[in-house]
Structures are given as structure tokens and as C-alpha cells.
């Protein structure tokens, strides 16, 4: 054993021991949502703590995506409240959620197809850019300085996600796995406090899934971003997440550490036993 070898620190394993309670970032209280009589979400409560990776799992149609849509203001629940950083949120538009630090990716990649990778990620900086129309028209001076400063930030993300080779490729031409990565990059460009990932690994092969898992962990550790993700692959969920909430038919049936959830009979019945 040499001097340097002794220096290595094994990164903390998730779940190992109950850590001191972290600050609650977002709290969902008794939220219900329905569309013309069809109940999508019934009376769901859970919280997301600062700095954790929180998984939301459940069979198809369990209301997971609807839950994300409620969190970032795309749907307005008929009942219940959402508390964000200690404040109860009233009806909120999606762009307001964005400006308060909630970013997300989509189940079916929702990139801006007409733009390049670079422009797509730049679009994530929209909220951070403030030069008004008149500077934009001139482009030289402050607007260009701003554009360049943000380009630099975007390049950090490109570097982080290792997508240098596709920087100037229109996203429509990229393979699916890379599109997902660009979408993650776009969300990261918002420097969000809470990052919602809707099935970040859907339709990926094993290698791509491993890459994506690594990126998610890196985002969480390097930037301290709180992450809530929906995922079908149980292996991935168990590896990645600190805590898991399980939905079924719009109701919450379990909530806790991955190991606990995995052991819960109700979850096994409702979800794990069912093949997808």
C-alpha cells in the first residue's frame, strides 16, 4: 500500500446508513388530478429532499408523468398543495416553475428539431440572459458578450456530457441515445435546483444506459442538483436513487429507500410481479 493509494476515498454508498435528515426542497400534499372525470392522480403526498436522487416508479399509466407535469406547473391539480422551498405554490405557469429552478426532460425527446445541439443547449440559458431587444439587434457589445459568456457555460456542459463531436449537428439527425443526452444538457444549462427526468433511459441499449446513469450520478454529485426521475428499469432505479416512491393507478403504494420498497409486498404485487 503506497502513500497515494491510502488517499482514496470510496464515494459514499447510497442508502448505507440513514443520513441526517436533509432539507425538504419540494413537498407534494394530497394532490389529486383528473381529466374530465378520469382520475390521473389520487391524493398523493411525498417530498423531495435537497441533494437526493428521488425515483418515481410504477406501472404504465400509474400517473408518473402527470405527477411531473403537476410539479412543473404544466397541469394544475384540482386538490392539494405543492410546497416549493417552504412556500406553498399557487397556480403556476410552466415558465414560472422554470424561473424558480425546476428543469425537466421528456419521455419522448422534446428537442427543438430545427436547431443544432449547441443551440438547443443554449436555449436552456434563455432565463439567464437579459440583454433586451435593442442590444440583440445590434448584437455587438453587451449582447454579444452575454452570448459568449453563455456559450462558454454551454461548452462546459458539452464537455461534461462528452458531445463535442455533435456540437454543430442539427439534433434531428442524431441517434436517439444522443438526443436524450442533448436533452439532459439542455435541462442542465438551466442550472436547475430540481431536475425532473422523465424516463431518461427509455429505449436505450445497455451501454447507453450505463453512460446515462453515470451522467445522472455525476450531475447529482458535481453540481449538487436534486433529481427526481421516472424510470422503468428497476436495476437502474435501485442503483441510482436514494429514495423511491411507487405509484399505481394514480395512488401511492410505497415510499422509502430502494431496498425497503423492493421488499414491500404491495409493490411486488402491483409492480414487480407484473412484467413490462
Amino acid at each position, binding site marked *: 500500500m503506497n502513500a497515494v493509494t491510502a488517499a482514496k476515498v470510496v464515494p459514499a454508498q447510497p442508502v448505507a446508513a440513514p443520513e441526517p435528515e436533509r432539507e425538504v426542497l419540494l413537498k407534494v400534499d394530497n394532490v389529486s388530478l383528473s381529466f374530465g372525470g378520469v382520475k390521473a392522480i389520487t391524493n398523493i403526498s411525498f417530498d423531495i429532499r435537497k441533494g437526493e436522487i428521488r425515483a418515481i416508479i410504477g406501472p404504465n399509466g400509474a400517473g408518473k408523468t402527470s405527477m411531473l407535469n403537476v410539479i412543473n406547473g404544466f397541469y394544475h391539480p384540482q386538490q392539494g398543495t405543492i410546497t416549493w422551498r417552504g412556500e406553498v405554490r399557487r397556480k403556476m405557469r410552466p415558465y414560472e416553475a*422554470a424561473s424558480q429552478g425546476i428543469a425537466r426532460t421528456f419521455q419522448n425527446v422534446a428537442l427543438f*428539431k430545427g436547431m443544432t445541439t449547441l443551440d438547443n443547449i443554449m436555449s436552456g*440559458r434563455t*432565463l439567464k440572459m437579459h*440583454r433586451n431587444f435593442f442590444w440583440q439587434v445590434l448584437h455587438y457589445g453587451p449582447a*454579444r458578450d452575454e452570448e459568449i459568456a453563455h456559450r462558454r457555460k454551454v461548452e462546459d456542459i458539452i464537455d461534461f456530457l462528452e458531445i463535442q463531436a455533435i456540437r454543430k449537428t442539427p439534433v434531428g439527425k442524431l441517434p436517439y441515445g444522443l438526443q436524450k443526452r442533448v436533452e439532459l444538457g439542455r435541462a442542465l444549462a*438551466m442550472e436547475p435546483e430540481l431536475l425532473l427526468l422523465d424516463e431518461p433511459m427509455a429505449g436505450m441499449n445497455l451501454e447507453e444506459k450505463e453512460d446515462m446513469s453515470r451522467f445522472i450520478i455525476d450531475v447529482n454529485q458535481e453540481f449538487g442538483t436534486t433529481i427526481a426521475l421516472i424510470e422503468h428499469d428497476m436495476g437502474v432505479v435501485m442503483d441510482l436513487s436514494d429514495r423511491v416512491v411507487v405509484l399505481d393507478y394514480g395512488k401511492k403504494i410505497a415510499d422509502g429507500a430502494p431496498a425497503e420498497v423492493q421488499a414491500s409486498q404491495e409493490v411486488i404485487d402491483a409492480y414487480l410481479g407484473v412484467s413490462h
Partner: protein
Amino acid sequence: MFYREAGQFKTTYEADQALFPIRQDRIAMGLILAVAFVAIPLLANDFFLTSIMIPFLVFSLAAIGLNILTGFAGQLSLGSGAFMGVGAYAAYKLTSIFPDANVIVLVLISGVFSAGIGAIFGLPSLRIKGLYLAVTTLAAQFFLEWCFIRIPWLYNYNASGAIEIPRREVFGVIVTGAEALPLTRYFIVLSIVVVIAFLVANVIRGRIGRSWMMIRDMDIAAELMGVRPLQTKLLAFGVSSYICGVAGAMMVFFWLNAAEPSSYSITLSFQILFMVILGGLGSIAGSFLGAAFIWILPVFLRFLPGLFGVEVAAESIQHVTFMIVGALIIFFLIVEPHGLARLWQIGKQKLRVWPFPY
């Protein structure tokens, strides 16, 4: 093939994000400007300036205006003709009220009025999308046209109901009215078009341009990225209408000398829309190409029979032009829905990767 990009590397973001990052493109642009500012004035006769170049430039500008709204921000509009009319009438009223003011400045200011009216008619765009929005803009088209007819104040209570542009001088040079020289008009129109096109190119590659394209490509995602849909769309309506307004004012001040409400009818709206579609949605260069195509093709068709010594009635030629334009639109939509600009892009890409196919 003519592109020699090897060795053109960028050491700053300024250079990387320049309007024309490739040297050969910069040279080509320089050549085009040289032709426009030097060669054409030296070589062209009055007919060429008055009947081809000036209208082409005016329509190009209008097409750029509509392209911002439809091509970049993705909001279909059938009312650009009326917004051009607003600019024309506003400029006319301004020069009537302030006869001593610089008429070029007034033309540029007139766009502000159409921008305001455009923004008002853009309000419904928050709730209404796609084809439904076309109805809103049709409402604007017919309502404004009606205003041009029914509000005599707008045309200074002329018996004819038309506006006639008085003679105005700027720095001792006659710039409007019947005595204004075609060359003078040409330089004014060209300068305004070049400057506005350049400014638009700036906006497009910045935050605002991106916001427009975000709304166009996926409005829901755009909103979740923090784009405020209403502001962004209204800005697009405003900027688009401003440019259309200026184009409309230039149309009557520097080209036609006189205009009546029917000059700004739905036919004009369609004509501009065709230019945008044929030229290419979401492309500034395409706006010029589309305008050239739609304006110059009929002129060409008018002369074509003469070249073969065939006498054809002017009316028939107009009808045939309609048919050809209609057929070409369908043809283009089938062959290349993204218009001439995309063809140009493809061609350029081919030249860049030559001799490779990709």
C-alpha cells in the same frame, strides 16, 4: 468545391459565432453587396431599377418580415398585406403632418404603427394555434382593409380614396414623388433593406431568435425552459409587422408613388406568403430568393413570348403566370418543402464536401 475550409480555425467565440464564419461566404457576401451597390447602379437602366430591383427589394423586406413570424416563430399569418398597408398609411399621414421632416426617417417610424397593430392582432395567438390563427390574421386583413376605405382621414379625404405621395427632399435631393430619380430611390431602398436584414440576422442568432424558434419547434418545451409564450409571440408579431410596415411604406413612397386600399389586399398577403414559402421558411436568404422568384418570374414570362416572336395578350400572360406560380408552389412543396433556401443550403453543402457526397 470552391470551399477551402481547411485551415480556417476559430480561436475565439466571436469568430465562431460570426454571421459568416466561412471565409468564402464572406467573400461571396462582399461580392453580392458590391454588385448591388456599385455594379447595378452603374449598369442598370431606369426600367430595370424601377420595375425589377426596387420592387424586388421591397418584397424581400416584406418577406423577411413575414418570415420572422411564420418561418422563425411558427405563427401562420395571412395578414401581412394589411400590415404593409398600415405602414404605408402611417407614413403618408406622418409626412402630411410633418412635411419638413426627413421622409426616410418617417418611413422607418411608420413601422412602429404597424408593429403596434400587429401586436394587438397577435394577442389571440396565446390561445389560438395553427390554422385557427390564420383566421385571426384574416380578420386583421379584412378589418384593416376596411379601415383604409372607410376612414377618410387616413387618405386626407382625397376624392379618389387613394394616397398620392408628395414630393419630398432630403438634404436637397428629391427622394419621393414623381420627380424622384430611380437611382435615388434604389439606393434608399437598398440601404434600408440591407441594414434591416443585417439587424434581423443579429436578432435571429441571439436569445430572442432562439426563443422564437423554440416556440416554433415545440412550444410546450419552450415554455418549460422559461420562455414566456405571450411576450415572445407578441414580440414576433411586433417585429414582423414593423418590417412589413416599413416595406409597405417603401412600396408606395419609393416605388408606386400612389396606392389605394386594394394595393394592400389579401392578394398581396398571399404574394408575400408565397415568397416566404418558396424562398424557405426560417431563412433570411430565402426571403430574397423567394421575392426574386415570385417577382421576377412574371416579368420574365412577360418577355418570354416576345423572344420567340409570339404575340400574346398581356391578360393571358397574367393568367398563365398565375397557373405557373400555383403549379410551382405545389411542385416545390412536393420536391423541397423547405424552399429555395434549402436547395441553396444543400447545394452549398455539396460544394463544401465536394468531391464527397456527404
